[in-house]
């Protein structure tokens, strides 16, 4: 594989052609925050926390590092004042969906909730990690999205679940491990997950918040 030269935060780095900026940076030990990225899955570009500045002078531009591929001579800045300001705003906004964002992340970007924002505490940041894991790795398509805009949410398709969950994930719900907020393993989608806790047989649900996940899973014969 051919190598290309890139400059990240002033540091000259050689990395494999075809990598994303994020992969190249991580390979060189440079931190870029992410919430919707996982190395097992295709990049999705939804959280935008990974934005970086590329280019120089007039032609500077902001791109999502998990999606943008490196090329010879690319110049990248990952922690400019502008970028960190955007990350702060993104986290400020997300706090009104997910009020237990890891403290380290909040502190790093001095993010804080703002009482001028309206709360929509679903604890699901719609990062799509669960949906994509189920689809890309398991080929099961048990999970999906419905709705547009603010009412977009993750759903489980019970018929698909009955067909696939037990065979695709015999040792327990693998998608659980991918949820950054832990909401997927709380008993009700949209309820605050207990800190650091996961239910052994819980699953993301559901079009209707009042549906008990365990009941649905029982109905479809999962538990």
């Amino acid at each position, binding site marked *: 594989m051919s190598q290309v030269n890139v400059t990240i935060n002033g540091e000259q780095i050689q990395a494999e052609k075809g990598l994303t900026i994020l992969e190249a940076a991580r390979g060189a030990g440079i931190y870029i925050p992410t919430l919707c990225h996982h190395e097992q899955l295709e*990049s*999705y*570009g*939804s*959280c*935008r*926390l990974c*934005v970086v500045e590329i280019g120089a002078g007039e032609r500077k531009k*902001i*791109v*999502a590092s998990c*999606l*943008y*591929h490196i090329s010879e001579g690319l110049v990248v800045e990952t922690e400019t004042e502008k970028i960190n*300001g*955007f990350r702060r*705003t*993104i986290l400020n*906004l*997300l706090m*009104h*969906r997910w009020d237990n964002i890891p403290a380290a992340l909040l502190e790093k970007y001095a993010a804080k909730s*703002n009482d*001028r*924002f*309206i709360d*929509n505490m679903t604890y699901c*940041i*719609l990062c*799509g990690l669960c949906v994509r894991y189920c689809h890309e790795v398991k080929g099961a398509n048990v999970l999906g*999205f419905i*709705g*547009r*805009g*603010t*009412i*977009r949410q993750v759903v489980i398709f019970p018929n698909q679940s009955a067909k696939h969950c037990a065979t695709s994930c015999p040792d327990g719900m693998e998608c659980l491990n991918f949820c950054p907020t832990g909401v997927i393993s709380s008993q009700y989608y949209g309820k605050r997950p207990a800190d650091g806790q996961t239910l052994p047989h819980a699953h993301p649900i559901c079009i209707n918040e009042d549906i008990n996940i365990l009941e649905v899973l029982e109905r479809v014969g999962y538990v």
Partner: protein
Amino acid sequence: MARLNSVSDLDALRKDILSRRDPKKTKVSVCSGTGCRAYDSEKVIESLKSGLNTHGLNDKVDLVTTGCHGFCELGPVMVIYPEGIAYFKIKPDDVDEIITGTLSQGKVVDRLLYVDQEGNVQVKEHDIPFYKHQNRVVFGNNQLIDPENIDDYLALDGYQALATCLGSMSPEEVLETVKKANLRGRGGGGFPAGQKWEATRNAPGDVKYVIVNADEGDPGAYMDRSILEGNPHSVLEGMLIGAYAIGCQKGFIYIRQEYPLAVEHLDRAIEQMRELGLLGDNILGTGFDFEISVHRGAGAFVSGESSALMSSIEGKVGEPRPKYIRTSISGVHGCPSDLNNVETWANVPVIINKGVDWFTAIGTEGSKGTKIFSLVGKVNNTGLVEVPMGMKLHDIIFKIGGGIRDGKKFKAVQTGGPSGGVIPENMLDLPVDFDALDKVGSMMGSGGMIVMDEETCMVDVAKYFLEFLADESCGKCVPCREGITQMLHILKMICAGEGQPGDLELLEEVAAMTKECSLCALGQSAPNPVLSSLRYFQAEYEAHVNDKCCPAHVCKDLITYHIDPAKCKGCGKCLRNCAVGAISGTKKEPHIIDLDKCTKCDTCFMVCPPKFSAVTKLSGKESIA
């Protein structure tokens, strides 16, 4: 119809059609577009048909049912050629007089003529200010063509441009021509079409696609619908020329489900092309093969975005996808795909037929040709208008649009659709030009133009557009989904009188992030209505936040209704019309509004006779005084 096996076959067919037509013969063009149909143009056409029959005029008069003429608010619309007499708001009952008067004796039916606000009457279409200042390069043929009859298109040099390209130009020459014409995309971004074609042409791969974007999700815009309904072949011809230049054999038309008439005419047009051998293998015997499939979109605003549209064509969810690799390199099924807007495609045959020099003589340095706008809002004349690029906003609004309704004052114009921006009065000299509009924080977009008068609240306007965008955001990425939600929430609070110091800065902070960090152009442009109104109407925002005052008297929570005792003559009209009984008073004495009961329905304000105008709305400090 016999298949055309060569360019000369096409020429022969055209000659034959023209030989059977007499340009001096009376031709009645009646609009049967979606707008006029809503005013029962179908019935008018039926009466005309039977009337011409009973009066034995079938041989003397040609009746053409056409697509939109542009002046839909005065529909049903009719033009009688060769004189060019224009009639408006025609009822089936008027038809008899048109036949016995105008068509039989050349007598004009006065009451169907156009009358402007000052009472000036115009007989001829080209004397009517709404039409006079337009330059209808793309749209003009609409009223001469029955969209279901390919002969009408052929009679007006239809498919001549295609024949020229296939018969005597190499694909490279066609590409060069479009590049030299500097045709820029009419669907939103204004990207040079030739450059996009070239990128697609040069991209590696044997299978390539051309696509027509007829999703037209911008509320209030209907130019693409009107072109497809009225002159579908112009778009199809443009598409074929593009396909030839790029080197593809397959095209898609992505059209919204809600355009049944356009779909019908498109399907019919494609069928006719196939019969003539203008589609399929070996078109005009030149070895060029091309196929088209029509794709109906579900009609979400975001599905018009290029990557979402392509996902949708692939049968996937119509959601934008990351696009650092351009769709001209990797589009539908990973193949190089060129996407252009309906109006962009319709310009292509014009450029080939009339030449680069002719085309580039119209417009400005950076924006060539014409642009169709959907002129709506508080102007006297609304409709579809096609103007040369570079025309001043002022001229569009005041010359073509006839100025502001009811003698009110102009306040602002929103161009570029819901994610465009507002432009204030002191910038009305601005030319319509891609770059000039961008520079002031708005955009050309697909050509929406909403005119607002002094009774419009700019905070309310920003809120309105953000409401639309909040519904239409696909919800995939955080900046757009959360950013629009919170900006909208703040705007709602400001309009409700709950604005606080710092709100405007917060709006700016969120807007800047949303603009820079969103995944697709919907999110990237969504802050425009907020940022542009903040930029040009900051004082109005401040009045809302600091003084709890809505200067335009629009925001319900910030106004109260009062009756001016000096003006009220006690006619009692308001009292009788107030649904909640908030008004009291004895006859011929000034009336009073009980503010505790008043629901601010605006009824009394509307019904109080203009000669009294005793009901007033007060806001902020006004109401305290």
